[in-house]
């Protein structure tokens, strides 16, 4: 089937769904929906509909961004806008069904807003006027919450695979790379390296087998945007991978996901299956002669597996430990073949960049940070969520406008950005813009997009202890400065937080940190001291109180400290670690 036929078929199905005489109930079922009970709500809803003999179509969709309102469901009746109900639970779902589905009015159920050209249903506001939606400019997440991730036709009806079709039918691979270069797209995995240039490394490598790897390891605590994309709209990633494959002459794509994250895994595999059935994956895609295949590869739990060479080791089924470079992945990657590794977000921008052009993309954002930032906002704000906003917003806007301000009776104390290897910023940092370079200059990184907001009830030493404990727990053990350094740093930070610090501890930490920076193969050891350095810079007083006065300003450090032990063999008692065969 050619693309036009597919598109017509998809449009027809989509129009039918939107004009369906049977009400359509969409339920947000990304990680945020799952954790707030969306699947329990769906089950209750199904039982209820069966009991009352009501006919309705239930669609599991992704995250619209307003995680604080989850479980968020919306009901679309024929000829009416989509009406959104926030914070639905098994307790009030019956009320919603009874009031709106059966009696067509609203008494007690809490509505958030409407979406649709038909206007408001009961005088509720347009969802697009809520600050959490109004400030968003959704590119990678354009379909999230609107289309069912399990239905490829919904994706196609909303412009999906038209970027791929355009690339295959009207562009040379080199044009695609030029377009991505001109868009100014920079990698969203943390290092912010220009994606177009990265792709060009693979072009000259010998084939025929070449890999484009997509990194959705996403072990960063505080970040959930990669998983969010895969759960909400996996086809956008597949299309991005296909475009990258065409541009670089790659033959295979691998999507790398952590074992246990069943939502993203299942939805990606389902999407791959559907794309294969329609001939969008496989041989001679859209009659262009371009062949490409995608498979999912799982890793065990390992944060370092997100590092590009460690990721390749894990794909090969080994321990996820970084390799020496050179040779670089473009020459010697997974299974020794030329490879290129991109983050989920970076690839997910490609379809829209090709569809709408580089100029359109680069007109969004600021300076050398073009496009959007996908912010995972969590912590002490009223409205945590998954917000895709143009680059260049200030952190103040993120906290107040997107986040709805600090929780009641709390003031801003710190911001932890860029994951556990990022940095900690103080309350004076709110004028900083979300811009890769500006944030790096401020001693933090934007990284993968996690922003954790801490209030005046948070102790900087306590948070630092958790960040260091995480880094120690996750050190793969290959380089001794990281393996031993992290342990040493944790020991010192624990000492400080237990009010047992010794003279010279602060200098000792800096010295250990310096050794780790210069003596580690990958970012885990090189950047592992970053959070401590920025915490010491911005929260010297917190550290001083623990060290000199032996008190914790918030009392958090008086709580029992429970962190898991690193159980990797190198960290165990030597004898206990030996396996008797």
């Amino acid at each position, binding site marked *: 089937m050619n693309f036009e036929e597919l598109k017509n078929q998809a449009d027809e199905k989509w129009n039918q769904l939107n004009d369906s005489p049977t009400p359509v109930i969409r339920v947000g079922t990304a990680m945020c929906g799952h*954790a707030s009970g969306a699947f329990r709500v769906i089950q209750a809803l199904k039982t209820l509909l069966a009991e009352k003999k009501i006919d309705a179509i239930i669609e599991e969709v992704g995250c619209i961004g307003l995680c604080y309102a989850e479980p968020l469901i919306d009901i679309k009746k024929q000829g009416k806008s989509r009406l959104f109900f926030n914070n639905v639970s098994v307790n009030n779902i019956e009320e919603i069904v009874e009031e709106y589905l059966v009696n067509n009015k609203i008494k007690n159920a809490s509505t958030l807003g409407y979406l649709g050209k038909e206007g408001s249903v009961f005088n509720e506001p347009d969802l697009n006027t809520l600050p959490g939606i109004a400030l968003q400019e959704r590119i990678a997440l354009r379909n999230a919450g609107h289309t069912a991730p399990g239905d490829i036709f919904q994706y196609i009806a909303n412009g999906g695979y038209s970027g791929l079709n355009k690339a295959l039918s009207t562009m040379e691979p080199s044009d695609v790379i030029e377009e991505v270069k001109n868009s100014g797209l920079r990698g969203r995995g943390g290092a912010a390296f220009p994606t177009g240039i990265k792709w060009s490394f693979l072009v000259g490598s010998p084939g025929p087998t070449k890999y484009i790897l997509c990194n959705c390891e996403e072990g960063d605590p*505080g970040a959930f945007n990669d998983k969010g994309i895969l759960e909400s709209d996996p086809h956008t990633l597949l299309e991005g991978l296909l475009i990258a494959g065409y541009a670089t002459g790659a033959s295979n794509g691998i999507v790398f996901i952590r074992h246990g994250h069943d939502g993203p895994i299942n939805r990606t595999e389902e999407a791959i299956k559907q794309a294969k059935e329609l001939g969008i994956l496989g041989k001679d895609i859209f009659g262009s002669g371009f062949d490409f295949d995608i498979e999912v*590869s799982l890793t*065990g739990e390992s944060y370092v597996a997100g590092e590009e060479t460690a990721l390749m080791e894990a*794909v090969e*089924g080994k321990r*996820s430990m970084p390799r020496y470079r050179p040779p670089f992945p473009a020459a010697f990657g997974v299974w020794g073949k030329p490879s290129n590794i991109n983050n989920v977000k970076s690839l997910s921008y490609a379809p829209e960049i090709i569809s709408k052009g580089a100029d359109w993309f680069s007109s969004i954002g600021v300076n050398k940070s073009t496009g959007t930032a996908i912010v995972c906002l969590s*912590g002490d704000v009223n409205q945590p969520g998954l917000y895709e906003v143009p680059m260049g917003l200030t952190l103040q806007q993120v906290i107040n406008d997107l986040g709805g301000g600090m929780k009641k009776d709390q003031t801003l104390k710190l911001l932890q950005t860029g994951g556990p290897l990022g940095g900690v910023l103080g309350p004076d940092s709110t004028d900083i813009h979300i811009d890769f370079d500006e944030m790096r200059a401020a001693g933090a990184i934007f990284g993968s997009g996690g922003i954790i907001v801490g209030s005046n009830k948070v102790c900087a030493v306590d948070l630092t202890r958790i960040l260091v404990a995480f880094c120690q727990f996750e050190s793969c053990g290959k380089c001794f400065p990281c393996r031993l350094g992290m342990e040493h740093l944790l020991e010192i930070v624990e000492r400080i937080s237990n009010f047992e610090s010794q003279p010279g501890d602060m200098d000792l930490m800096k010295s250990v940190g310096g050794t780790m920076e210069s003596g580690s193969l990958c970012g885990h050891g090189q950047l592992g001291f970053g959070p401590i350095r920025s915490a010491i810079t911005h929260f010297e007083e917190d550290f001083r109180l623990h060290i000199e006065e032996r008190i914790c300003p918030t009392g958090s450090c008086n709580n029992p400290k429970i962190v*898991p032990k690193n*159980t990797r063999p190198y960290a165990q008692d030597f004898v206990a670690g030996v396996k008797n065969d």
Partner: protein
Amino acid sequence: MPADNDTLRKQIIEAIASQHRPTVTVLSSLLAIQDSIGYIPDEAIEEVAVQQNTTVNAVFGVASFYPNFRFSPPNKHSIEVCWGPTCHLQGSSNILQAVLNYLELKEEGDTEDGEFSFRFNTCLGACSQAPVISVNHELFGKISPDESINIINKIKSSDPHHK
């Protein structure tokens, strides 16, 4: 017991053979075995080594590296509590304390009654709903220590083997 051993080996071989993803490696086979029987017995290390044409040491090296693998049968129900930074700021240490006390455990491990296996999780991926726990792989967000105990308690009392 040789009979049991045979059954176990059969299960392992079947788990290795029934992987649906095209690329089969040491790691993918181990994950498949853990998904199928819940842990990695010594026999699994041997079978994977034979099937992947490598050594038992190399296979155990992979298995012992990733903390999600376990080497003894798990208890009936799994409980994971997230201790990542967001969850920590939202009070996960109180949940950890309460759950450990309730289960009469000091650290990661299995309860003696054979009911629960407890693990720390570095990030369950739902930071906007922090603090988060996972009970039998179902996520519960914005949860308090008391609510966590209630959920665990409910499982225990709905179990026919328990009063």
